[in-house]
């Protein structure tokens, strides 16, 4: 039982990081009909820019790293939006997929040319401290990561449900043409949504870097595929469904690691995807017609 609870909480932490990346993916896909394949690499850029910011300002610590991560990822996200995504809006999904994939190749290999292809140690922005909560043992870094991701996801949910631009986002997701006819500035809403998704990824990236203590130019690969699976399994009708699925996937992976085998961990996501899409082609919670 203790093992179960421990794996459950570990899974929650992993799931929260999947959720932040997947939500960024889902925002870009539902609003812009673009598979932003470079989104995990925006996440990676945030990780490194946070690290550099923390290096430039001695004693600045976590706050400076978070600001640096957010600034770096938002900047790179804005550049991608301006140069690749906006000109291709309305084209076939596959065209944008390949184009952003090209961006992803550029970002990964560009960063590998700067920092080298191997993982490098991430600065210790938080002390390594353990907390025992009942039968559970959680590190301070895990708690920070989970907390930050939870706050980001809550803010994202508030943005989509509660703000004016967020409601426009949902209108565009359903019918871009009708939304435009009702006076929504589609281009602007898409841009802002894209920027916000990038900012979120950058903030979460600093927390993930701190959690694992290492950063790699190719960290995006794994996150990209997992986030992709979450988005598809959830379908795009309910924004929050992506979060639920991401947490469920994280927990499922942790349980498979704990009880079955750690080498099967990465296969779980894909078996779930095939199973769910075979039974419900529109995702668990349904999708808008595309």
């Amino acid at each position, binding site marked *: 039982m203790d093992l179960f609870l421990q794996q459950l909480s570990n899974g929650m932490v992993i799931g929260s990081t999947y959720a932040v990346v997947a939500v960024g993916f889902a925002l870009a896909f539902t609003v812009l009909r673009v598979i932003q394949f470079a989104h995990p690499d925006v996440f990676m850029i945030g990780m490194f820019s946070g690290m550099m910011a923390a290096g430039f300002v001695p004693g600045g610590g976590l706050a400076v790293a978070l600001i640096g991560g957010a600034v770096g990822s938002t900047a790179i996200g804005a550049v991608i939006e301006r140069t690749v995504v906006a000109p291709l809006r309305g084209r076939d999904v596959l065209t*944008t997929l390949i184009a952003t994939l090209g961006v992803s190749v*550029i970002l990964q290999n560009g960063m590998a*040319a700067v920092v080298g292809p191997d993982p490098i140690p991430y600065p210790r922005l938080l002390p390594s401290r353990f907390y025992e909560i009942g039968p559970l043992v959680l590190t301070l870094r895990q708690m920070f990561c989970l907390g930050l991701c939870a706050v980001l996801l809550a803010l994202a949910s508030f943005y989509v449900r509660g703000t004016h631009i967020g409601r426009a986002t949902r209108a565009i997701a359903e019918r871009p043409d009708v939304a435009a006819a009702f006076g929504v500035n589609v281009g602007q809403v898409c841009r802002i949504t894209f920027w916000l998704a990038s900012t979120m990824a950058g903030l979460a990236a600093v927390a993930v870097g701190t959690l694992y203590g290492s950063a790699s130019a190719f960290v995006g690969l794994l996150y990209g595929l997992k986030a992709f699976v979450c988005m598809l399994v959830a379908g795009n009708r309910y924004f929050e469904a992506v979060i639920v699925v991401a947490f469920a996937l994280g927990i499922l992976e942790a349980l498979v690691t704990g009880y079955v085998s750690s080498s099967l961990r990465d296969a779980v996501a894909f078996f779930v995807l095939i199973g769910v899409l075979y039974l419900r082609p*529109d995702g668990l919670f349904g999708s808008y017609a*595309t």
Partner: protein
Amino acid sequence: MMPNLAFFEPIVIFTLLNVAMTVGLYVTALSGQLSMATAAIAGVGGYASGILTVKFGVPFVPAVAAGAFFGGLLGCILALLTLKMRDFILKLTTLAAGEALSVLAFNWDYIGGANSFTGLAPHTGLVTCVIVAAISLYVAWRFDGSRLGYGARAVRDDPLAAASMGVSVAQVRVVTFALGSAIIGMAGAVQAHYLLVVTPSQLGFFVSLNYIIFLLFGGLQTLAGPVLGAVVLTALPEALRFANEYRLIVYGLIIVAVMLWRTDGLLGRTPLGVARRIFGVTFGSAHTSQSILRAEDVLPSSTSAMKETATTKSL
């Protein structure tokens, strides 16, 4: 002076194999099912033929045929699995299937597991690869102009309209997926006997992605598209070797540039208008150019305008 052939041979072999695989993907994609499991299908072909030659002593040619068979079988299964799914979801399901197979191969000790499947004999040479590329091109070319090929295009463009015209959507999808996958499985089997090792990571999505990039870069409307894409993009990283660590960045830049400025790939539906104007030829399937009525055939003004430019050029 002759350049050193031994240096170019691997590049030529990989180019030919990539042409065969991309042509297989082209056949699959013709009915609108752009498979994202190319590498997994090729890997199944490689594993199947490798197990037959190494563990059962089967000769090379029947083993390659078996590789093609198992590739086609997997294609058949994938097509049946995704029959109900919408276009975009379908592509991503094939992606997941490929990844799942990769992990399965990783955990299955009989076929080597994480240590890869080794012990294959080197059967593949330049000639084998030329034959494989020729077979795949011939099959794809015949398919391209066949009744089934047109049916596949109709299903891709509008399944509902195709069905109402009496085309069996399910049949077309399964047959095209199986045929394309058989070509890929054959190429995979031959590749395995050149590399002499089959590793689980070869089955992954990021290998499959290469073939999709080849196809979309060249253009998926004509048979010449995948051939051009595979040749250019296999040779390009080799040609960029002087730039070593920046070559992948340049590779990425070229992909983005093509997608931005030639969205349909280098060869669109009317392949390279410039080349046609200069040489007066159309690349790709001869059947297509005969059967599709071009604007010049209908509009006399444009024909005469073309003739005019031709005469001014000759003057």
